[in-house]
């Protein structure tokens, strides 16, 4: 019970401190707008295949997540508040608080990306919306689950910004490939059961990542 309350408080603290500056939120929305317009301009008058468009959607989501999700721990180190946090609560409540904050952030972000992508890029036609939105949801949860522990790692390193995508890409690749595949199925109008295998992989990836992170976070945080 203590864990639930304290991680909820960490989540609240993150949201409050985010809304005080709105640094990440504004920058991320601009990032999304810029990348989607880049995609739009590069398409021009061409009509690319659904496969390419599903891939591009996940490229946009991946790089927005990479620029947004590392903030939680890096900001803590920059402000010099990590020591206070370490004194006040347990490592696992910090982990869960940050995980849920990342989850909220990336879910809002990828909903926004997917929505505007659908709206702006006319060639991208989704036929099975149930598969599409479930893929967006599970893909975002997977991104958050893997990047929380990686963000904690890179917050302690010297070159923070460039290191994050380098470390995250090989780990997130099974997730991204599966999500792209499921998105392609959604554009082809597949039935829900046909994408079941993809969802199983996504869910098992999330479970594996969160379990490993819970076991390892202590060592990173208390270092």
């Amino acid at each position, binding site marked *: 019970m203590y864990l639930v309350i304290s991680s909820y408080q960490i989540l609240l603290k993150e949201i409050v401190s985010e809304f005080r500056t709105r640094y990440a939120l504004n920058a991320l929305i601009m990032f999304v707008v810029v990348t989607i317009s880049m995609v739009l301009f590069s398409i021009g008058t061409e009509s690319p295949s659904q496969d390419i468009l599903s891939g591009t959607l996940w490229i946009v989501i991946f790089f927005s997540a990479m620029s947004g999700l590392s903030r939680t721990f890096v900001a803590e180190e920059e402000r010099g508040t990590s020591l206070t946090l370490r004194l006040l609560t347990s490592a696992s409540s910090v982990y869960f608080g940050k995980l849920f904050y990342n989850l909220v952030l990336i879910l809002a972000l990828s909903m926004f990306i997917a929505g505007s992508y659908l709206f702006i890029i006319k060639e991208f036609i989704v036929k099975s919306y149930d598969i599409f939105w479930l893929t967006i949801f599970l893909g975002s949860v997977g991104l958050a689950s*893997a990047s929380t*522990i*990686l963000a904690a*790692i*890179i917050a*302690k*390193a*010297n*070159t923070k910004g460039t*290191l994050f995508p*380098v*470390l995250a*890409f*090989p*780990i997130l*690749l*099974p997730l991204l*490939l*599966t999500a792209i*595949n499921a998105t392609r199925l959604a554009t082809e109008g597949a039935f829900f059961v046909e994408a079941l*295998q993809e969802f199983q*992989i996504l869910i098992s*990836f999330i479970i*594996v*990542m969160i379990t*490993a*992170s819970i076991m*390892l976070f202590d*060592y*990173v945080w208390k*270092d």
Partner: protein
Amino acid sequence: MKLWLKIGTAVWLTGVIVLGLGIPMVKVPSGFFQFPIIPGLEEKARNIIFHVPIAWTTVVAFVMAMWYGIQYLRTKDIDYDLRSVSSAGLGMVLCVLATVTGAMWAKFNWGSFWNWDPRETSIFILLLIYAAYFVLRSAIEEEERKATLSSVYSIVAGVTVPFFIFVMPRMMAGLHPGSLGDSQGKGPVLQMKMAPNMLIVFLASLLGFTILYFWMYSLKVRSMRIERQLQQQSE
């Protein structure tokens, strides 16, 4: 390592190379010193004696690096970190070798050096993981923090490996045996359909390369220990 083991490994691997390259391939093999011709593979089949053991040793090195990473986190003994990083360094060299031998085989068998077959994708990711591991290490100065964080990263990367070895080849059609669309069975471990004498040379090569790896590994660990001692003395 004992001297007899070193000489033994050298002789053993020389034997494997001589046998693997030297045994003639004939249509109807008779006796130990003749390999059967596999249609479609012909002389190129010899690469299995070198490519597969190197790829296997790459995985052994990766698992060892992860295992000593876990041991470091448990005990905080810096010696385990030296072992972990030695194993990862050797694993990276072996990974490059496996990629090169595989790419050459792919060129002559499938037509191009790289096809993004699921196994090729996996080894590419393994290379990326190794590279990221060393980039992470170079970005941290403090010795203990470097050891802890790189151990954590190697474990996090390690738990995703099953997705590549077991999940991806099931999903995508591939060229390697054991992929989706291959009629010869779908197991991650190939069904041993080799000729018995070829299998013996193959297993001998597997053993030889594994022992060679442990030899190189013990040399690397010893040199790392001495390097660290010298560094401490100079400080």
